[in-house]
């Protein structure tokens, strides 16, 4: 049985993650966004490491390391370089106002909590709060993806979703394959980032703003 303190710490990290997701939501500058994401990844890796510690599951440290290394360090740097290379205008034009996005975010958190309510406590160490935190992180990430007009911020949003998943997966005590899954996911993310590179390097798209990208579709209206 795990000490309540340990659980509280875990909750702390989870709550912190949600908080950082919110911070992601109201970033309106590219650099700020990326830095915030680095923070996001950092929090995740910390919580994973904590889980590894309290569950005595050393393999989770790998996940934590991956999260820290790739998502907190490599990818932010890569994104910064992309921005510099592509000269993407610094500001991120949102689809709807930041304020509205925040409101929606709060609604989402409420929704995720309501969804989790009926889950009985016998679900185990990862109590419904943590699960609802993870769910909110995922939903906020989705919201991020659809409320920004810009490929980079979409990638960031996606990666924050992934962090939420990692949070949930590592929180699920004794879940096998977590490491494999996180590795697989990191590959995925890496591919996405490389994808943006590809697009740019092939000189095919003047911008990485998605709404310009879709003009290259096969069948035009």
């Amino acid at each position, binding site marked *: 049985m795990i000490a309540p303190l340990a659980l509280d710490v875990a909750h702390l990290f989870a709550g912190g993650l949600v908080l950082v997701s919110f911070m992601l939501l109201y970033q309106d500058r590219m650099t700020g966004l990326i830095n915030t994401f680095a923070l996001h990844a950092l929090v995740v890796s910390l919580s994973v490491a904590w889980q590894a510690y309290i569950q005595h599951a050393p393999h989770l440290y790998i996940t934590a390391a991956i999260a820290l290394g790739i998502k907190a360090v490599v990818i932010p740097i890569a994104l910064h370089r992309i921005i510099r290379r592509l000269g993407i205008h610094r500001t991120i034009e949102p689809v709807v106002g930041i304020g509205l996005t925040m409101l929606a975010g709060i609604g989402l958190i409420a*929704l995720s909590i309501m969804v989790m309510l*009926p889950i009985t406590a016998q679900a185990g160490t990862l109590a419904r709060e943590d699960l609802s935190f993870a769910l909110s992180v995922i939903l906020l990430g989705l919201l991020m993806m*659809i409320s920004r007009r810009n490929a980079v911020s979409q990638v960031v949003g996606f990666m924050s979703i992934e962090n939420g998943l990692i949070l949930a997966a590592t929180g699920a005590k004794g879940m096998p394959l977590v490491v494999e899954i996180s590795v697989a996911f990191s590959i995925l993310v890496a591919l996405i980032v490389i994808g943006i590179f590809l697009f740019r390097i092939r000189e095919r798209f003047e911008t990485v703003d998605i709404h310009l*990208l879709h003009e290259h579709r096969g069948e*035009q*209206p």
Partner: protein
Amino acid sequence: MALEVLLWCNAALLAAGAAGLLLARRQGATPLVYGASLCITLVALVAAVVSLLAPGSLGATRVLPVGLPWLGAHFRLDALSAFFLVVINLGGAAASLFALGYGRHEETPGRVLPFYPAFLAGMNLVLIAADAFTFLFAWEFMSLSSWALVMAHHRRPGNAAAGYLYLLMASFGTLALLLAFGLLAGPSGGYAFDAIRQAPPSAGIAAVVLVLALIGAGSKAGLVPLHVWLPLAHPAAPTHVSALMSGVMTKVAVYGFVRIVFDLLGPPAWWWGALVPLVGGITAVMGVLYALMQNDLKRLLAYSTVENVGIIFIGLGLALAFEANEMTGAAALALTAALLHAFNHSLFKSLLFFGAGAVLTSTGERDMERLGGLIHRMPRTAFACLVGAAAISALPPFNGFVSEWLTFQAILLSPALPQWLLKFLVPAVGALLALSAALSGACFVKAFGITFLGRPRTPVASEAVETDRFSLAAMFTLAALCLLAGILPGYFIDALAPVGQALTGANLPRQEQLDWLTIVPIAQSRSSYNGLLLFFFIVLSASVAAEVVHRFASAASRRSDAWDCGFPDSSPATQYSAGSFSQPIRRVFGSVVFRAREEVDLPAPGDGRAARLQVRLRDVPWDVLYAPIARLVGFIAGHLNRLQFLTIRGYLTLVFGALVTLLMVLTVWQ
């Protein structure tokens, strides 16, 4: 026994189709395929006739391990199937015989030969199918193969559209039947007809099934307003196929309706007997009016098919009305009338289509305005068509009259019906029937007169040549049958006895013992008709008169120019044209029925311009029913189409929306 023979016939037909597919390019494939179809259909015809006349052999069933796996394909040969098998295979044999000659002129045999036998097989299979799946399978297969035949001349303008509309309507009808059988079979899926008979549906379900069956079978038979495809598709096919579609396939549709409503559906409700005859009557009148307005020979024939289908459904509806009130004798009479008319129509409609085909091959024209005077160049064809025209106009002593007379007799029994609605409705339907009969007379005076009589309107018409002997053989066989069925109707009515017995539980009095082969549907004192005597008298008195006149008065005659009230003879263009012939009737009915608009452009005196008369006919069902549907589909498609052109973000929003919605649903549900 007979059933096995029929199954083998179907196999042989399919084999013939395969042979047609393989040999299509070869020389001599045409006579091979059509000859084979002729022989096979003849065998099937004999089998059907034998089993109809020797009712002992009826009721045989057979289950083949194909089709729906755990059910197998059920086949059954009962009186109803046997009768319609006679119709189908008679028409099929005639068409094959005709095609032996006509098929030579086909420019793309590869598109006809494989599908023609398949089409025949499909129709035959529908008739012996005894479970829902096999029935619908064969039904749709029939539609599909005939569609392929319609598309045979796909390069001719309009044919593609016709084929499209045809297959679409056919599938719609199949859907209706599918739902009907779904209701009949129930969730457990008892698709076999026997199982359905065991568990007749409740009244409400039966009503729905009736409507669905009316839609499903009606869309194939061409009931107004489901008829729109028919006048487009039937003429588009090669003529022998047109004959099959118009003369025979519509009968398969009638069979489907009878099978479902009379056999599977249990006792009818009285209002069915109001609905069906009304639809039939409207169909009959509308059909013949549209036919009158046509100048395209084959399209005219197709519309007249719509009319005759209407007449058949009048009879069926009356049978329902009587059966609902336990007046089994009357029901048997009405049913017999309807079925007999189905048989007759298959005869003369095929005959007339063959005539149109012969004209088409020898002149290359279907437009009556460009024909005329063919009776001089193609006397035999003209004679056969004259018989056909007289028969389809319900003139004694030919067969068309007999069935319509029987229908009238059935209508005259309506006062005995208890329901007031029926009391009033049925005579009104009788009025519609009388109207359509008279109008069809006008219609075929026009069709025959403009095409064969008068003076040739174009060079092609004046250089026409008599058609080949196969076609003539086919036409004269059918013409002879028309006369035979007209003067000896008793035998045909008796042959129908088992059907009436099976479906209504009653029979007309046996006809063949009556002296002079009179037919007496109910009682001598009530009504009777004797085509044989009439025929005999007419021929006798005509020949006596001719004899007397030529013997005792002058027999001299000389040729000269036409008198024409002393006007100098002018070009054939001054003849009455098809359009002008139907003008009075258009003036009388047209403004109401198809909102006919006439624009006369009469130049002022001294103005050299030619005066023009322009007539616009609107197809009302199309305007009020089909065009809106098409517009609706286009509208929806156009608006949904925007979803194809969202940004990725938009699509992600969709996903997000779906997720959130489901989560909310979940919270609400919990």
